[in-house]
C-alpha cells in the first residue's frame, strides 16, 4: 500500500463542482481516497493551481502516419534535441518528435491521457507499439472506419446492426477505443482518383453518401454503448466555403445519449471557412457556434493553428493532395487496403498570410463564442494546427483579451474584415480552462467513469500542479505568467506517483491502453459470418486470423466491456 497526501492544493475539479478551494488530496494505491494515514508521504502544493491530469482528446502521436511524418522530416530531428538525463531517454524533433519526446513534453505540461486521433485498423500493431513507448500517458486509439468496405455495404443495405457488429469485431480485434470517420467516403473516392464535394455525393462503387455513413455509424455507436461518440473529421476540410458542409453535417445529428454528446466534431477550425476561394476566405465561426450552442448533442474541438512550422497528417488523402498543389512541398499519400488512406505534408503557418491569420482567429472564435465550454475543447489536432507544446499559449490567448489584441496587431491587416476576433471580449477563467483541457475531454470521451478527468474518491490519481497562484495572477494582464505556468508543472502525478517535476520526467513510466470490447450475440458476430470471412480472405493482404492485435502488444491494456443492444 502506498499513500500520498497532497497538501494545500488550490483545486479546480469541474466535474465535481470544485472551484478554487484550497484543500488536501489523499491518494492510496493510485486512486483518490477520502483520507490517508498519518505516515503517508506528503507533497506540499503551496497553494498552487491543481487540476486533474490533462487529457488530449485529439492528437496524432503514434502510428504509421506519424512515423511516416518522421521519415519525411529528418530536418525536424535537428530541433528539440535533449540528451539522456536521469530516467529520460534522448529525444529529438519539434513537430514530429520521437515518442519519448512527445511523452515527456506532454507529461511536463501536466497531461496524463492522450487519444491518438486516427489509427488505421490494419496498422494497429505499430500504433500500439508506439503507445508502449509513450510511457507517461494512458492512451486510447480512434479507429478509422471512413472508407471501410464492409461498413459501406452495411450502410447501403441500411443494416445498422450489421454495421455495429463490424465495428464491434474491428474495435476488439485491433484494440481500438472509438469510431473515427475522416472525410467519410472521401478517402475511398480518392482511391479511385476522385473526391466528394459534399455529404450528399455518392461514394464511387458503393452508392452510399457521407451523410448515410455518418448517421448509420452514429446509430451503430449508440447500439454498442461505446463510451465515446462517433468522432468525426467532416468532409471538405480546409476548403473555402466548407462551413456549409459542416452545418449540414451537424444538422444530421440526433440527440441519442444523455451522458455525453452524440457527435464529436474534431478540429472544427479547419471546417469553418466562408468565402469561395482562398482570396475571399472568411470566418464562419459565428454560424458554427450558433449551431453548436443550440445542439447539446455536439461537442467539438478547436483545431487551433499557431504560427510556425509544422506537419499536417491525416487520413484525408485528397485534402493532403490539395495542400500539395498549394505548397509544392514534399508530400506523401498512402492507401490502406479496404479501410482508409492517409496523407502527409509539412506546412508553415505565417503571420504574413491572410489565410493563415484567418485560420488562427477562427480557432479562438470557436472557443470564445461557444457558450458551454464542455462543447468546445482545446486541441490543435497536434501536429496539424501546431505542436501541442503550444497549448499554454492558447490558454493565455483564451484568458486574455489584451494578449489577443497584441497578437492581432502583429497579423495581416485584413483579419478585422474577415473575422470577428477583435470584437470578442470574453476571457476564460481557471474553471473554464480546466473544462476545455481535461473535464470536458473526460466527459466527451466517456472516461470519467474510468476515473479520468476528475478528483472524486475512486478516481485515478492523475494530477497536474502548476506553479501558478490563482489569487496572485491576473490572467487578463499577466498572461505571460499563465503561459509559463502551464508550460511546466511543479508536479505531474500519474496514478499516485510523481512522474514529472519542474520540467523533468523522473520515472520510466508505465501507461495503460484503454480499449473497448462490445459483446455481440453469436448470431451477429461477423467472425462467424462466412460471407464476411470470405471477403476478408479475398481482398486483404493479411489472413483474417493474423489481423487481430495480440495481447502481447498491450502489456497494460485495460478493456472496457459494453453490452450491445443487438
Amino acid at each position: 500500500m502506498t499513500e500520498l497526501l497532497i497538501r494545500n492544493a488550490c483545486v479546480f475539479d469541474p466535474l465535481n463542482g470544485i472551484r478554487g478551494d484550497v484543500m488536501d488530496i489523499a491518494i492510496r494505491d493510485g486512486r483518490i481516497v477520502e483520507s490517508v494515514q498519518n505516515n503517508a508521504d506528503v507533497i506540499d502544493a503551496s497553494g498552487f493551481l491543481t487540476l486533474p491530469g490533462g487529457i488530449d482528446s485529439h492528437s496524432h502521436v503514434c502510428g504509421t502516419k506519424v512515423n511516416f511524418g518522421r521519415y519525411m522530416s529528418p530536418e525536424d530531428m535537428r530541433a528539440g534535441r535533449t540528451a539522456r538525463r536521469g530516467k529520460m531517454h534522448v529525444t529529438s524533433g519539434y513537430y514530429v518528435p520521437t515518442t519519448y519526446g512527445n511523452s515527456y513534453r506532454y507529461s511536463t505540461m501536466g497531461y496524463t491521457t492522450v487519444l491518438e486521433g486516427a489509427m488505421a485498423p490494419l496498422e494497429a500493431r505499430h500504433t500500439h507499439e508506439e503507445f508502449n513507448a509513450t510511457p507517461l500517458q494512458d492512451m486510447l486509439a480512434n479507429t478509422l472506419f471512413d472508407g471501410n468496405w464492409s461498413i459501406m455495404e452495411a450502410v447501403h443495405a441500411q443494416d445498422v446492426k450489421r454495421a455495429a457488429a463490424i465495428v464491434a469485431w474491428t474495435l476488439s480485434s485491433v484494440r481500438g477505443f472509438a469510431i473515427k470517420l475522416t472525410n467519410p467516403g472521401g478517402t475511398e473516392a480518392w482511391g479511385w482518383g476522385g473526391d466528394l464535394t459534399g455529404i450528399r455525393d455518392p461514394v464511387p462503387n458503393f452508392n452510399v453518401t457521407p451523410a448515410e455513413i455518418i448517421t448509420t455509424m452514429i446509430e451503430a455507436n449508440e447500439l454498442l454503448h461505446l463510451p465515446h461518440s462517433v468522432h468525426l473529421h467532416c468532409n471538405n476540410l480546409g476548403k473555402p466555403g466548407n462551413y456549409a458542409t459542416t452545418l449540414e453535417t451537424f444538422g444530421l445529428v440526433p440527440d441519442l445519449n444523455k451522458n455525453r454528446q452524440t457527435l464529436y466534431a474534431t478540429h472544427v477550425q479547419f471546417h469553418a471557412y466562408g468565402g469561395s476561394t482562398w482570396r475571399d476566405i472568411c470566418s464562419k465561426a459565428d454560424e458554427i457556434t450558433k449551431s453548436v450552442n443550440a445542439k447539446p448533442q455536439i461537442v467539438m474541438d478547436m483545431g487551433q493553428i499557431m504560427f510556425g512550422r509544422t506537419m499536417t497528417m491525416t487520413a484525408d488523402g485528397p485534402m493532403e493532395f490539395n495542400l500539395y498543389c498549394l505548397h509544392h512541398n514534399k508530400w506523401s499519400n498512402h492507401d490502406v487496403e479496404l479501410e482508409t488512406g492517409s496523407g502527409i505534408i509539412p506546412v508553415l503557418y505565417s503571420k504574413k498570410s491572410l489565410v493563415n491569420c484567418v485560420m488562427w482567429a477562427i480557432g479562438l472564435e470557436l472557443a470564445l463564442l461557444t457558450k458551454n465550454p464542455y462543447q468546445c475543447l482545446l486541441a490543435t489536432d497536434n501536429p496539424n494546427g501546431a505542436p501541442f507544446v503550444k497549448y499554454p499559449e492558447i490558454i493565455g490567448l483564451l484568458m486574455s483579451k489584451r494578449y489577443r489584441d497584441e497578437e492581432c496587431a502583429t497579423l495581416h491587416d485584413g483579419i478585422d474584415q474577415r473575422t470577428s476576433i477583435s470584437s470578442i471580449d470574453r476571457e476564460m477563467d481557471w474553471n473554464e480552462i480546466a473544462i476545455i483541457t481535461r473535464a470536458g475531454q473526460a466527459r466527451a470521451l466517456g472516461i470519467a467513469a474510468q476515473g479520468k478527468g476528475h478528483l472524486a474518491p475512486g478516481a485515478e490519481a492523475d494530477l497536474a500542479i502548476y506553479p501558478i497562484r490563482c489569487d496572485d495572477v491576473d490572467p487578463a494582464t499577466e498572461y505571460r505568467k499563465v503561459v509559463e505556468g502551464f508550460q511546466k508543472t511543479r508536479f505531474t502525478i500519474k496514478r499516485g506517483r510523481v512522474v514529472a517535476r519542474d520540467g523533468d520526467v523522473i520515472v520510466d513510466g508505465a501507461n495503460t491502453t484503454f480499449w473497448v470490447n462490445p459483446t455481440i450475440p453469436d448470431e451477429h458476430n461477423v467472425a462467424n459470418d462466412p460471407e464476411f470471412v470470405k471477403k476478408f480472405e479475398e481482398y486483404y493482404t493479411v489472413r483474417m486470423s493474423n489481423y487481430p492485435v495480440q495481447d502481447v502488444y498491450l502489456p497494460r491494456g485495460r478493456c472496457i466491456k459494453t453490452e450491445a443492444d443487438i
Partner: protein
Amino acid sequence: MRVILEAKVRKKPFLPIEAESIIPRNFLKGTDLAVYEGNKERKLVDLFRISVEGTAVTPEKIEVVLKGDTSRVKRIGEYMDAGKITISGDVGMHCGNFMSGGDIEILGNADAWLGREMRGGYILCHGNAGHYCASGYRGEKTGMQGGRVEVLGNAGDYCAEYLTGGEVHIHGSCGDMAGVEMKGGQFIIDGDATRPCGNMKDGTCMIFGTVRQMLPTFERIGTKKLPDRKVTVTVYKGDVANRGKGIMMVKGTGRSDE
C-alpha cells in the same frame, strides 16, 4: 597568430572526433577548448599537440593549422566567421558547416558534407570531396546560401544539392545527382556528371565534361559561345517537371546517350 594543432597518434584512430570548437575565433581566448572523442568529452590538448606563434586581437588575424591524421576529425570550422584554417592532410565529415566567413584550405581529401549549408567565406579542397559537398542537410529545402567552394579533384554524389546561393566549382567530375533541387547560385563542373540538376528550380549549372543520363525534363533553348572557355555550350532550361527556371549549360549537346 598561428595555432598549430598536430593530431596525436590515438589507440583507436577510427573513433571520430567532433571538433566544432576548432574555429579561429575560439583561439582568441586561448587553447583550452573541448572536443568529443566518441561519446567522451576531451580537452583539445589531450588529442593534439598545440603550439601558438604570435598573438592576435581579432579572429581575422588567426590561422589554425591542422597536421597529422585528421581524417576522422569532424565539424572543423563549423560556424566559422573569420580567419583561416589550413588542413595539411585529409579532413573528416562536415568541415565548414554553416561557415559564414574566412577561408578553409584542405591539402588532402575532404569527407562528406564539406561546406554543408555554408553562408559565406571560401573553401578550397586540393583533393577529392565526398558526397553532399556544398549541399543542404537531409530534409531541408535550403542548401548553401553564399560563399565559394572549390574542389580541385572530384566530388561525390549530391554535390551542391539544394544550392541556393554562392558558387561551387568542381574541377574534376561529380557523381550522381549533382545540383539536384538547385534553387540559385552558380555551379560549375569541369568534368563529368550523372543525372544533374533534377528538380532544379533556379540558378545556373555549367558542365564541361560529359553528362550521363541527362534528364528528359530539360528544355533546349539554344546555344551560347563562352569565349573565355573557348567552347560552345547547349543551353537548357528546367527542370520542366518542377516548373523550374534554372539554366543548365553543357558542352556539346551534353548527351552521351544520343
